[in-house]
């Protein structure tokens, strides 16, 4: 406990603000919904430990920062590192970053830059790898480096159809592996890569089991809880995460057979796409689920895109494993930074079909040019398919809450009417 005379340092203040942001979301998840899931307790505690109490999880381990999903965690684990994904959802950090980046930048990037600028980590990355994905992330690497952190760029192509791109990316991944292997003083071998691939594959298979339940008529888990589970994978100890999700799968199995439904009978089923909801910026998902709709699937890089595609190896030798790891991160990726993006559109449609979605909510961060630019083509495609869609721009500030709620509620209401009419 603090004595009354201590003056709060900037770090303490930052931590206090972040703790406030974090706890209000955790409490909302815990208390605002019916039929809470017991095994979600692990995740609520985890986020409290890390973001309210700022306790480190990986003391004594080498932490490898990643700026996007494209840095293969299979290789990091094989080389005994702990991957920490640095995509950040805190408004507190976003505000710090705002002074360092153009005003209209993406809040996620601002928050990540702000986090580094303040140099206030509970698990500070020892080295950070930054794939050249969107412009803002690409440029952020050098800015973060200027604060005295070690940042290494990993070249990422912006087309995925061409042969040159495939080779370029495979070479990038190889050189990433070489650099990390030097940094760690450890060799990448057939057996350490194979077990890392299989471990992550197993973690992904658990995610797939979770999503299967969301296809049911009675949905046993909320979208916001799912976001929290996948978000934990950014930084959690992988074995603990696996254990917790195994329990969650078991509990959902029971709930599914008991027909537990976290939503109402008439609640519209939403497929969520666009800029990633990253803890504690669950603003839009929370509004959706507090407005009597339920998120049954998503197409975002903080959740589904991170887990859907597993590494597929044909010959379990090092050469083929590295190539298949590379391919996994490029080929099926539906990131908006690519020139063509029919894959993303087909994916959204497929999610709507297989999860019996009633509508799509597309969020773009104000300042995320690529998601903003893709909005038209996605809207047009949904119209062709007869799928209702709502496009929302938002940022990390708490200010527009009322207006966003009104828009989401109106959309949910229209979906309900549509459902009624169909019957």
């Amino acid at each position, binding site marked *: 406990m603090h004595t009354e005379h201590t003056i709060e340092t900037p770090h303490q203040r930052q931590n206090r603000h972040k703790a406030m942001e974090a706890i209000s979301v955790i409490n909302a998840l815990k208390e605002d919904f019916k039929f809470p899931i017991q095994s979600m307790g692990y995740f609520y505690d985890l986020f409290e430990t890390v973001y309210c109490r700022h306790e480190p999880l990986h003391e004594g381990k080498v932490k490898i920062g990643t700026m996007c999903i494209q840095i293969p965690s299979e290789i990091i684990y094989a080389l005994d590192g702990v991957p920490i994904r640095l995509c950040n959802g805190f408004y507190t950090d976003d505000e710090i970053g705002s002074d360092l980046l153009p005003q209209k930048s993406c809040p996620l990037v601002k928050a990540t830059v702000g986090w580094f600028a303040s140099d206030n980590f509970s698990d500070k990355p020892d080295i950070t790898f930054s794939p050249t994905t969107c412009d803002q992330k690409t440029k952020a690497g050098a800015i973060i480096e200027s604060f005295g952190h070690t940042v290494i760029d990993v070249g990422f192509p912006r087309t995925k*159809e061409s042969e040159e791109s495939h080779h370029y990316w495979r070479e990038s991944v190889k050189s990433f592996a070489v650099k990390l292997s030097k940094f760690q003083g450890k060799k990448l071998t057939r*057996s350490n890569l194979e077990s890392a691939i*299989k471990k992550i594959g197993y973690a992904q*298979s658990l995610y797939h089991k979770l999503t299967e339940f969301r296809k049911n008529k009675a949905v046993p888990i909320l979208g916001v809880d799912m976001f929290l589970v996948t978000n934990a994978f950014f930084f959690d100890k992988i074995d603990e995460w696996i254990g917790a999700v195994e329990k969650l799968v078991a509990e959902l199995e029971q709930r599914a057979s008991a027909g537990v439904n976290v939503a109402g009978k008439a609640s519209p089923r939403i497929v969520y796409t666009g800029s990633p909801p990253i803890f504690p910026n669950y603003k839009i998902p929370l509004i959706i689920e507090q407005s009597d709709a339920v998120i049954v699937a998503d197409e975002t890089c903080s959740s589904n895109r991170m887990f859907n595609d597993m590494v*597929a*190896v*044909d010959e379990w030798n090092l050469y083929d494993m590295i190539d298949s790891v590379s391919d*996994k991160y490029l080929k099926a990726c539906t990131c908006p930074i690519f020139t063509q993006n029919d894959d993303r559109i087909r994916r959204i449609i497929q999610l709507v079909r297989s999860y019996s979605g009633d509508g799509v909510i597309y969020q773009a961060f104000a300042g995320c040019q690529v998601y903003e630019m893709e909005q038209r083509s996605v809207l047009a495609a949904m119209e062709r398919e007869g799928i209702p869609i709502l496009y929302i721009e938002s940022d990390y500030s708490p200010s527009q809450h009322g207006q966003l709620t009104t828009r989401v509620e109106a959309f949910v209401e229209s979906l309900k009417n549509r459902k009624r009419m169909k019957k």
Partner: protein
Amino acid sequence: MTKNKFSLRRSVNNMNLVRFRFWFQIVAFVLIVYGGYIGLDLGNKLPTFACVFNGEGTGGKCYVGELQHDLKHPLEGFVGFAGYAFLISLGMFMVWFWALNKGWCGFVCPLGTMQDWLTMVREKSKIRYSEYSWANRGKIKSIKYILLILLLLLPVMIANSVFGLPKLPNGLSMPFCDICPGRMMIPAFTGHFNQFYIDFSSKTDLVMTTLGMIIVGLFLVGSFVKKRFFCYFCPMAALQYVFSKPALLKLYKDGAKCTRCGDCYRACDMDILEIADDVTSKNLVTEDCTLCLKCVAACPEEGCLEANFMGATIFESTKEGFILRMAMDQRGEKHAH
């Protein structure tokens, strides 16, 4: 949900395709290469390399060999009865072929199987496979058709003067057999190495048999470094593809479910880009496909790829099957390959 129940369909979809194919190919190899010793005779219209030069051992005979033989007749002959006979044998070939479509290549052909064995040796020695660049991959597609046309045309040109050209020497009567690796490799398995020779009796024979020896060398080295090296050039594949549309066994794709992750393409020994990139066609039996079904086994998307026999799904891609085949179904690290 059927998920919780035991079902035949589920266990088929979960099967270890590599193991299944390995044993299936061995059985097929034994029947084709040694079947003759136990009296097996599947006729001489087989859509696979059951080599006539394998003497008593062969359990049937290759239609490409037969076809060259059939065509070496004066054209007038084809008008009457011989013409009917020719069509009947072609028809027999088609009936055989339609049963398995190009599955003859992925599961039966002894030359295909030998190449797969060489691939296994390479894989065990931890040597990386080589690949063609996409541009070259596209270019070499036409070679098999050129070989096919030559093997059809040359015998005709021996018996006839085509376009007023002089008739060709008799040494070209089985032009493809001369250069076919099957002529040397298959009899070798029944202990007959007498096909490894160079024939000095005439210039044509000399050239053709030398070429044959070179091609066998290429076959062995090529398929060690490149999966299914010979199949890229195989005129049997070209001939089969002409009749592939009405075949009963099919490889179907539901493009809406495809994420274009490319897992199928990586698994494909024939480097067929369309299998991953084509999201509009339903029938994915392309010209070089061997219907080996490795792509189906490697696809992680539920029901995206399937082997279909006369309208019934017999084996389809599922998440569960994928996870089992990749040994990602358990927490531990006990799955050493």
